[in-house]
């Protein structure tokens, strides 16, 4: 057996987390550098994975398989398809920026009510999350996936509840109260989903006799394992519920605005750009892979929910007065698009959805991190407290605008490609749904531009008059992301080539063909 590359990719940040956590409190900066080092090393490994991965090869590559809990047929099975590779790359790519952006977020507070804040703990937790996310992108054993899918919650809980945003409305006590509320809400929602999923996992074991994704899928394919229709539907619902909470899909979304609002900007990015992707990814891999029939059965309902998410999230984003909550609701709307693309069951839709996961990660990271820099300068999350920033900090405003334009998926920036693919894919099968979803792009423009206008333009507010422009560290965070947005918007071919074969596999899982155009013009 060759060098276990995937294990290494997942293990490296875990080791990094332990090492970082072990750094004595006095050596705060050392811990930061260590964390950064490890995350960059992980990125390097991820690149190796992406290079070693052959898009036209088998469905799952770089596979590893060891027996783990023999009695229950639980195996330590890893393997990546194109989608997995793309998302692992995204995760490994974002974490260094998150760490860099959060460089000072966990420093001890200077306020007199300051509790001692374990700086290195902050970074250790981030690395731990990275490790778990990566391994859950790699796991091809349902049980293995489930374990890390759930374990992720613990570090996230501490990240949200422990290291709050310093820029809060009201007193420290109020802030910490809101923070713990948000953290607990996050935990409860996801645990509820997880428990239901656990039931479904056990049910799957009872039905299928093992946890291996590939074996079960094969068994389903060659008919040696046939579930009763209702069984399959219940299991599907069990899985889907958990993923829909994580994704988050309306009406299970309310934890996200609280979490993103209360957490520091980097952690918010970690939530929405990295952790939540596990949910959509798992829909694609497990829901469609294991329960194709049930997926098709549930598609109409899910499409409706996705539509509601898109429109509803956008409208609420328009209504927000808090920058971070606004971004959160925007993300809800975007997740609606992703889920729409997944369940449109067309190859454009699914490629688009996968691409969307990557692009949304990057664009939200850009927007949210810049917003974080903005907030850290003024010390307030309320849109009303800003105005005319563009005058005093043009670079900050410019990056903010680009992030916003990416969020409203302006052509030429990465999200446009994915969003249009999703829309076209959906439209091809369900024209009405596609048209309604298209309204989302108008609303996206509305909330983005309103946000930009209220914060950046207009007469300069006295509070922001002395606001410094982006520092080198911050620029180092934002510039690469923006460059990436533009590059992927102009030349997304590398990613699509990576994704397409995987999508074809999924399409064959659900035994769906793309609807043929009425006029074969091209031929």
């Amino acid at each position, binding site marked *: 057996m060759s060098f276990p590359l995937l294990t290494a990719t997942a293990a490296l940040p875990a080791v990094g987390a332990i090492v970082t956590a072990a750094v004595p409190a006095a050596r705060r900066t050392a811990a930061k550098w260590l964390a950064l080092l490890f995350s960059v090393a992980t990125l390097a490994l991820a690149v190796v994975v992406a290079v070693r991965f052959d898009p036209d090869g088998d469905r799952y590559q770089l596979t590893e398989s060891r027996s783990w809990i023999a009695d229950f047929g639980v195996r330590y099975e890893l393997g990546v398809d194109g989608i997995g590779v793309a998302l692992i790359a995204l995760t490994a790519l974002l974490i260094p920026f998150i760490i860099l952006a959060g460089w000072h977020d966990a420093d001890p507070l200077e306020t007199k009510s300051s509790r001692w804040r374990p700086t290195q703990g902050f970074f250790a937790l981030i690395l731990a999350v990275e490790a778990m996310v990566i391994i859950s992108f790699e796991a091809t054993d349902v049980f293995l996936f489930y374990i890390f899918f759930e374990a992720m919650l613990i570090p996230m809980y501490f990240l949200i509840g422990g290291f709050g945003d310093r820029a809060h409305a009201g007193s420290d006590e109020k802030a910490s109260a809101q923070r713990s509320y948000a953290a607990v809400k996050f935990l409860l929602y996801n645990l509820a989903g997880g428990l239901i999923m656990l039931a479904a996992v056990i049910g799957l074991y009872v039905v299928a006799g093992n946890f291996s994704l590939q074996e079960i899928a094969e068994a389903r394919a060659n008919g040696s394992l046939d579930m009763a229709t209702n069984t399959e539907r219940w299991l599907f619902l069990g899985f889907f519920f958990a993923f829909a909470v994580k994704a988050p899909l309306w009406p299970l979304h309310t934890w996200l605005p609280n979490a993103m609002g209360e957490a520091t900007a980097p952690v918010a990015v970690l939530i929405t750009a990295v952790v939540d992707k596990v949910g959509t990814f798992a829909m694609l891999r497990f829901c469609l892979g294991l329960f194709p029939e049930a997926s098709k059965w549930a598609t109409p309902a899910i499409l409706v929910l996705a539509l509601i998410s898109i429109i509803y999230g956008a409208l609420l984003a328009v209504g927000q007065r808090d920058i971070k909550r606004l971004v959160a609701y925007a993300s809800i709307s975007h997740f609606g698009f992703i889920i729409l693309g997944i369940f449109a069951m067309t190859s454009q839709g699914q490629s688009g959805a996968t691409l969307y996961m990557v692009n949304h990660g990057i664009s939200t990271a850009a927007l949210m991190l810049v917003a974080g820099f903005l907030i850290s300068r003024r010390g307030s999350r309320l849109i009303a407290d800003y105005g005319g920033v563009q005058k005093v900090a043009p670079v900050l405003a410019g990056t903010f605008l680009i992030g916003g334009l990416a969020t409203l998926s302006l052509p030429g920036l990465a999200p446009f490609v994915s969003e249009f693919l999703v829309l076209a894919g959906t439209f091809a099968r369900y024209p009405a749904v596609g048209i309604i979803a298209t309204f989302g*792009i108008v609303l996206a423009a509305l909330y983005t531009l309103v946000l930009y206008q209220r914060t950046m333009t207009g007469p300069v507010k006295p509070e922001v008059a002395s606001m410094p422009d982006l520092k080198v560290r911050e620029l180092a965070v934002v510039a690469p992301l923006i460059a990436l947005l533009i590059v992927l918007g102009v030349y997304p071919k590398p990613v699509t080539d990576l994704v397409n074969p995987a999508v074809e596999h999924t399409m064959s899982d659900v035994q769906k063909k793309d609807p043929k155009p009425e*006029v074969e013009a091209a031929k």
Partner: protein
Amino acid sequence: MNTENLIALLVAAPLLGAVVLLCGGRRLDRVGHWIGTLLSALSFVIGLVLFTDMLGKGAEDRSLHQHLFSWIPVEGFQADVAFQLDQLSMTFVLLISGVGTLIHLYSIGYMEHDERRRRFFGYLNLFLAAMLLLVLADNYLLLYVGWEGVGLASYLLIGFWQHKPSAATAAKKAFLVNRVGDMGLSIAIMLMFTTFGTFAFGPVLEASEGTSEGKLTAIGLMLLLAACGKSAQVPLQSWLGDAMEGPTPVSALIHAATMVTAGVYLIVRSGAIFNGAPDAQLAVTVVGAVTLLFGAIVGCAKDDIKKALAGSTMSQIGYMILAAGLGPIGYVFAIMHLVTHGFFKAGLFLGAGSVMHGMNDEVDMRKYGGLRKYMPVTFVTFGLGYLAIIGFPGLSGFFSKDKIIEAAFAKGGTEGWILGSVALLGAAITAYYMTRVMLLTFFGEERWRHRATASPEQPSAEPAAETRGQHSEPHPHESPRSMTIPMILLAVGSVFAGGFFSIGDRFTHWLEPVTHHDHGDSPLSAATVTGATMVVLVVGVTLAWFQYGRRPVPAVAPRGSLLTRAARRDLLQDDFNHVVLVRGGEHLTRSLVYVDHTLVDGVVNGTAASVGGLSGRLRKLQNGYARSYAVSMFGGAAVLIVATLLMRAV
């Protein structure tokens, strides 16, 4: 050398300029404007090169094609980055890059006192790049990129003076309204994708013959929606008036000459689709006709010179759309009017800018008057533009507009009569309001002398207005060379372009391969139409002269008739939007926020609370007294015994 490869450079040059200028930082402040101007000039030169090269070829094989790279390759969905340069595109390329260059030049002088001039030129270059991409794309998706790109550029430029809330709002409004149009475009593309499996011009337009009319109508209407958004046609016209918040060169370039005509380009480009969908065509003509009158009426009422010109732009584009809706009869004239309009309207705007420049950025025409002595060049150029737009015989407008009116009649049937007469009416009103502008600005007494401070209801467009102007009496003066030269060149264009095009139907033949022109059978002879046009022209002018030329003009606008007041408010369309969309939207979002907080969240919190309460009640059982535990133990034992007994009994 192979000329295809130059096409990319057309786009690349201004794009490079934009990148350099926007990322370059302050060190470029002193040379930035020149870089921008040179790069746009460069793309104009490249355009000329390609043009000459094209002229060298036969009419049929003039269309060039350049495939750069595959953009979005997905199963069954192939989008390429590829350019197509045919006669239509070429016309636009020359117009855009030419006028663009002139306006760059103009801006050097106009924006001299603005410390963010570099950024301004960056935006202008960005606009040029996007606009060229729009007209050069060989598929609808790439066109969409350019389409949104120009939207972005116009957003940035309208809101260039961001410290003014009005400007920021106007920019946002423009972008949003355009987005509605873009929605139409994207839906149209999706329809094409599902119908034809592709959205490249070639295959789609070929295949559109054999396609069901219903599909084509749907696509056509969606394209029309897009065109309405971009070209400020009813019902999506509301943004154009506010867009005048932007610097005047922007108004000239984007909101008069080029971007707003993108809709016309889209419709003409998709001619094949519209030919297959008469209903869609009818819709197009109706929209055109309505906007034609709408814009003209608005133009009559505005006292803000730029807003008046904006109204005129609206109505002129209405003409083009109307012509484009007429099908093969009208395509050519639509484009022709587009080009000539590009010249004279840009010239008019530059003239207006020059006037404002000399008048301390005063925009209220009622505070002008008698300026011809002070700024002769502006007066002459503006006057030529004026003559051109009202269709004075021999000038550009005359030819193009006249042709459109003919074509309208040539549509035949009642439609033809209605459209034709509407066009005629429009011509009359055009003559009226343009004469009004002319008289108010350059003739009559000098109302700007010893006048009180600026009237509050007309906030001046330029930021400096707050500092200088207003308080001191203006000293009208001619603008610097860099501003007058473009005006002169444009004036030349607006004088001769029309004649040059239509002598021997040059333009028609030039565009023949794209638009497949056919002369409809007009119920009226060309002469009759021309005569009619002349008559209405004279009527309009005299009317205006009676109203504004003879009597002194009140410095503060009289209350005016109901129609006037409505027209001042853009025929209440904004109020409608505000009441219905803005207010309604606000209430909707507010209520949704409430719902999200109380209902969706409330359900969850409610369950949590109820569980908490239940557990609290259960907790009471655990009173900690050993004896009560003992009771339960004992009871349990009893139950067990019962169970066993029953078991044995069974």
